[in-house]
């Protein structure tokens, strides 16, 4: 396998984007990525497009966005791995370049969730657990699924609603400092605790927002990458694992096993340990999910996630800064865009070009992205390195 680097990244503003359709939205990210890499569409060999769909009018989005972005006649595929869809697109591009089939590939992730009303969006996500066994009769929702993980974690480890609220406070703090984030205001623990219940114990401010956005990542093989940029960011390790759709069939309800397995694969491939990571992007679709991620990724022991946030260790300057772009929670979680958005952020963290207040201290030059699909149905982990 060949060495592969990130050579260009682009990102639209996240938010309720009533000003653009899916193609126009995606173009914002594609244009910025091409400009960042100093490439044109002609240089791109292959385009995986990650999007979940259903909430916008086009059933074949890869066709629509590649046409609009001037990428015809490049090969493309529409890929899906629930909320890890964007990472699935990045990994497809990685496999293509690492294998030698392409020299340069561009992963695009986007979502436009606000073309339907909120109850319909809640419905489309809720159906994505196990339709007949968990939705048809029981009306599960995604906050509901993570609430199941929360109540079990609370019962096993004494985790409190306050701990979850602290995650929201941190992520809003950084979202307020990220010019591309959707929710750009700071909040307090009381704001979270007093917000309306969504799926007890998950409240409004524990949830990522339903919104729109796009991100794009250009990958190149080693010899090409070095000609394109002086600051290639290398893909050091990748991991991918799956678990049951029915949450009732999981081994336990206080871990996301697919995240544990995917991260072990990625650590092994990159030949690093969790302690080597300078900065991480983790899948905080709900605040409890970030606490689970600390533990599943080995940033702390199982059950000690609440302590890590309580001590402020996941802020810049702490043991392991996490989601210092606002995370899904405050930056927004346009589902298919998220995985590509994580790589956008970590590439810029390793290049040390983000807003100074949220720049992590880059010591070992290692960053990690953790992108969970569904309720742990899948997990993709990507480890990036400066050297």
């Amino acid at each position, binding site marked *: 396998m060949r060495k592969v680097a990130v050579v260009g990244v682009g990102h639209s503003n996240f938010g*309720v984007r*009533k*000003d653009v359709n899916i193609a126009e939205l995606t173009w914002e990210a594609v244009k910025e990525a091409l400009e960042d890499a100093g490439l044109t569409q002609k240089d791109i060999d292959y385009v995986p497009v990650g999007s979940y769909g259903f909430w916008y*009018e086009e059933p074949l989005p890869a066709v629509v966005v590649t046409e609009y972005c001037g990428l015809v006649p490049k090969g493309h595929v529409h890929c899906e791995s629930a909320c890890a869809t964007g990472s699935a697109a990045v990994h497809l591009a990685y496999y293509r370049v690492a294998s030698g089939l392409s020299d340069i590939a561009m992963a695009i992730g986007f979502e436009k969730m606000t073309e339907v*009303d909120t*109850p*319909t969006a*809640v*419905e489309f996500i*809720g*159906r994505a657990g196990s*339709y*007949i*066994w*968990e*939705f048809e*009769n*029981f*009306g*599960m*929702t995604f*906050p*509901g699924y993570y*609430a*199941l*993980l*929360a*109540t*079990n974690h*609370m*019962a096993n480890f004494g985790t409190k609603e306050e701990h979850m609220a602290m995650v929201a406070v941190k992520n809003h703090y950084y979202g307020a400092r990220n010019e591309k984030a959707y929710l750009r205001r700071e909040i307090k623990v009381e704001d979270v605790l007093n917000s*309306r*219940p*969504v*799926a*007890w*114990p*998950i409240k409004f401010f524990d949830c990522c927002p339903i919104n729109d956005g796009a991100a794009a990542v250009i990958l190149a093989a080693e010899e090409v990458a070095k000609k394109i940029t002086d600051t290639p960011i290398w893909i050091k390790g990748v991991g991918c694992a799956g678990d049951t759709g*029915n*949450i*009732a*069939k999981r081994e336990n*309800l206080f871990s996301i096993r697919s995240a544990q397995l995917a991260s072990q694969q990625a650590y092994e491939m990159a030949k690093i340990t969790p302690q080597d990571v300078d900065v991480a992007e983790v899948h905080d679709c709900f605040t409890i999910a970030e606490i689970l991620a600390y533990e599943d990724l080995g940033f702390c022991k199982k059950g000690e996630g609440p302590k890590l946030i309580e001590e402020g260790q996941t802020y810049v300057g702490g043991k392991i800064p996490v989601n210092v772009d606002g995370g899904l929670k405050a930056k927004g979680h346009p589902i298919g865009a998220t995985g590509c958005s994580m790589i956008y952020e970590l590439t810029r963290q390793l290049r040390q070009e983000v807003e100074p207040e949220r720049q992590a201290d880059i010591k070992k030059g290692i960053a990690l992205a953790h992108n969970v699909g569904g309720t742990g149905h899948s997990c993709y982990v990507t480890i990036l390195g400066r050297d």
Partner: protein
Amino acid sequence: MSEQKGLVEEKGLLQLKSFRTIPLTYTIPVARIAKFWEGLKEGKLYTTKCKKCGKVFFPPSADCPDCMTSDMDWVELSGDAELVAFTEIHVKPATFSQYPTYIVAVGQLKEGPRALAWLTGVKREDVKVGMKLKLKPVVYEEGRVAYEFVPA
């Protein structure tokens, strides 16, 4: 969101609200586990058990992927369970908007597997992980056939 179709303004931005609305109803085959659904109507909780490895499935499965066999026994579940996790759904999906707030629980069944179902007959404040539950078949007025947990 406005019900008017065609060209409409939202937040001062022009939108095309589509005229092409589709009602969507799936027809899902359940013939291979018909005994489960028919059992619920008779007040019984049946599930499948692999004749080869003895694994009890819930939800019922017509095939055992571990043994590569479709040779299954039907067994009756006691309904005895213990609560593993729960939530109370306040923000509901569009097609559940007619229901009041509902509690969903995951229960560990005595026979091995876990089940996810509504938990009724108890207030959320009184629900505790570890409490004893009973899983019971239910037929609703609207004709819907399902099962619910109740406190044991």
